[in-house]
């Protein structure tokens, strides 16, 4: 699994290197599309809620808060 750790680290380093080009406001037609946003729609949020209660892992990057919930 060592190669996987280096892969993830390299992936993260790609983020840390800032983009060389600046996207101007009038060039953001694709970035401003609803589907390109990092958040989730209501259906996706519910699916993540299901994953949260049925798996031990907690989904990062979601709007949910850990803790509570029944659903036995």
């Amino acid at each position, binding site marked *: 699994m060592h190669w996987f750790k280096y892969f*993830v680290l390299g*992936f*993260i380093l*790609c*983020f840390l290197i*800032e*983009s060389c*080009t*600046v*996207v101007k*406001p009038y*060039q*953001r037609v*694709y*970035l401003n*599309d*609803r*589907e*390109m*946003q*990092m958040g989730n*729609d*209501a*259906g*996706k949020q*519910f*699916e993540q809620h*299901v*994953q949260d*209660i*049925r*798996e*031990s*892992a*907690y*989904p*990062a*990057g979601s709007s949910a*808060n*850990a*803790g*509570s*919930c*029944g*659903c*036995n």
Partner: protein
Amino acid sequence: MKKRYILFGLMALSQLIKAKSAFSDTTFQKKKLSKTNIDFAFSYYGQNGNNSAVTGGIGTEKLSVYVINVDVKHQFKELNTFSLNSGIDIISSASTDKIDYRVSSASILDQRVHFDAAYQRQLKNKPVKINGGLGLAFESDYFAFPIHLSVDYTSPSKMQTYQLGFAASIDDLRWGRGKKDEPLTLVYPSELRYKDWYDTHNRYTYQLKTGFTQVLSKKVIMGIFPEFIFQKGLLATPFHRVYFTDDSKRVENLPTFRFRFPLAIKLNAFIDTRFILKNQYGFYVDNFGVRGNSIELEGVVKVKPQFSLLANFRFYHQSASRYFKPYKEHSIDEIFYTSDYDYAKYNTYKAGVGFKFFPINKNSKKAMMDAILLRYAFYYRSNKLQAHVVSFAFSIATENKK
């Protein structure tokens, strides 16, 4: 000659005075805009399996959940947004029915109700948003009081965003809330109520959420979201049974503190002009010995600007917690033990489809339908648990000019 210059000057001066008066007589007035968005969501979750934790890792896990959720966001005076989220879950669980071993009874119906209110303020002339909120949630077997506070910063070039948030929840796992004839108490399996198995009935959760997004190009954006969660108190479920190798049984027992570290890396890319590919990798580790890795891919095709079709697939692998063992495999000498298959080693597969419709509204003076969404997903866990998830949502937007 002088007369020409004087005449020309007077003509220019008259034009200047006319222009200034025209500007000062303009009827333009700055209007303050307020917007309201109301989102309605209806969801269904139905599962079936044969490893119920209520009966020690064996038995039916049949469960149906019907969810109604309403979310209202009202933006006023440009920089302020108030939101209210409320919902009810109706839960029908065959395994909950087995806490008291009521023979030939219908599955118990339970409900979970929650309210959340939040306020967001964008700082004037600064790309910073501050968000805070609190809520309430209650079900037959718990009462929760969550709070949260977060700050978002967008760089001046809008190429990066930074998020920092903190959330906490205080949960009370006692039953009997709101019922006059029943005392507030932890509920154990009927045959194990001869003693108090836990010293506390509360669970405390503290969560640190961070996020960083980076625009890579005109069509690609990436984000990384590491979080840290600390939980303490009653982390086991009081009505879960555990059977041991010597045929004895006890109530589930887990450590009273848990450190959890989830991480998500997302990449959204617009391919060509109609196709969007959304990728997500998830990593998870905690002090219970659970490790998880997930990969999710979602493709969205914009058939028309207002109409999109989507399909997604998710694979998740989890290693078992050191405290998990199946039915009748725990030794009586163990201190912490569970037979809840949510802590077991397994793979899960989820495949889903959906469509989204964004109506074009020409009349902006009235409330308008902003979006309609329908999603279906099939969820399968390698220990034979399977589930269907259906969600239907629509949102209404209004705009008021003052």
